[in-house]
């Protein structure tokens, strides 16, 4: 499983437009971390954003696109700062922490 994180919008939107998405490859993770990632991905996939209409009235909020690529299929989840579900937030926080370690 490969998980890709792309960030859009915000005060630094013009910079975010150019930054390449960042990738976490579950195959390269220690077993426990890979299991944790799989659990967070499953939870995020099955819970909806608090609102489904994008950032709405928010201005300069960030949106995040998390793409999960499995052997046979890929899933794209997009949620924003003001509308994300707790499960999406948990996955995002985990990914950002992991990516910051690199």
């Amino acid at each position, binding site marked *: 499983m490969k998980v890709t994180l*792309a960030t*859009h*919008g*915000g*005060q*630094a*939107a*013009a*910079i*975010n*437009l*150019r930054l390449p998405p960042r990738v976490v490859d579950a195959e390269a993770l220690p077993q426990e971390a890979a299991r944790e990632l799989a659990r967070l991905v499953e939870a995020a996939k099955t819970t909806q954003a608090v609102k489904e209409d*994008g*950032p*709405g*009235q*928010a*201005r*300069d*909020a*960030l*949106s995040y*696109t998390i793409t999960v690529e499995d052997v046979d299929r890929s899933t794209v989840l*997009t949620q*924003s*700062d*003001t509308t*994300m579900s*707790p499960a999406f*937030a948990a996955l995002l*926080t985990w990914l*950002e*922490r992991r990516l*910051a370690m690199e």
Partner: protein
Amino acid sequence: MTTTRRCLNCITPPYILKKLLESGEEEIRQAALNTLISTAQLRGERAVRASFAGSAAAPANGRRTIFDCRNSRFLPQATLVRSESDPPVADASANRAFDAIGATRDFYKKVFDRNSIDNRGMRLQGYVHFATNYNNAFWDGQQLVFGDGDGRVFTDFTGSCEVIAHEFAHGVTEHTAGLDYHNQSGALNESLSDVFGVMVKQWTLHQRAAEADWLIGADVFTPNIKADALRSMKAPGTAYDNKLLGKDPQPDHMSHYVKLPDTEQGDMGGVHVNSGIPNRAFYLTAMGIGGYAWDAPGHIWYESLKASSPQTQFQEFADTTYLKAGQLYGAGSAEQQAVLAAWNEVGIRVSGVPGGAEALRVPVLAGRGDGLVHDGTPIPALIRQIEALAAQVNALAEGLSVLTPKP
């Protein structure tokens, strides 16, 4: 009577009156006073007097509250750290947000006679330490939210006063024009936040247009990043150019307008990219008029913001600023000429201006030659302001006579 009052508030420009009546020059004070007194219909009109007195003596509203998110992404989990009457606290981010939100609130009150974001004294709530290593600040539709930055590329977003004022201005735009956050209207929305954000910064520093750096987010980068700021209003496209961040993609002219998808991935049609065009138009206007950006240029933009609607595009906004400059400072005034020249320079020709090219030959960018200057404003310009005011007072009187119930 309620109808009458609402109508009065939308057509009286209290900042002009106040400025003129407070003038140190006897000639100007008298002219302003005469203008009011000579309008016979106004004499004894209680609603008018109440409106003026009210605007001058309104209590300082817009109480501030700062919350600490403690790295959570969910605002209801934040804890209160500082309220309006509290002394400074140990958290520097909380104090910076508190101070900058206060400065912005005071700017709108003193310069535009606007009472907080909604002009009704709305409470001002700031949230600091949002999420972990969060490289951003935003307006969530009701409150202002700030991240600490990752410490590697970005630092604490409460460090740039104009960024805080930028978010505050999003609230003001929502309560006035309500510009749609997509494509041109969205880029205009973004630009207005930069325009008012930069004015707050210059007002705080008491800088003239020519002395200011015109940068947005000058302090959001860590010292190891080679970048001036997030955006430059003076020279869009030049705020940064390095390997890590790439080159600032903001256009400074309509011919370089960047077409991006109207999606979250495309920054809603590049709202933070194409704002460079109207940003530069404001910068050029301020330089053309001279003095402080929050004086004539700020008032022209503020009145244009209030006269705009969710669908307003660049062209319509340019036309509105030209119209408002004429209404506030007189048709053909140096202020109006500066507005015309500024839009022309970014590739937007104001609609319906006869002999647009000839009109632009007036050397608006040159210094004032008349020598008569009062408080940074030349006296002929002040007299034009008084004339514009007189026209508005007449319109007001007409409005009143229509609204006053006939016996």
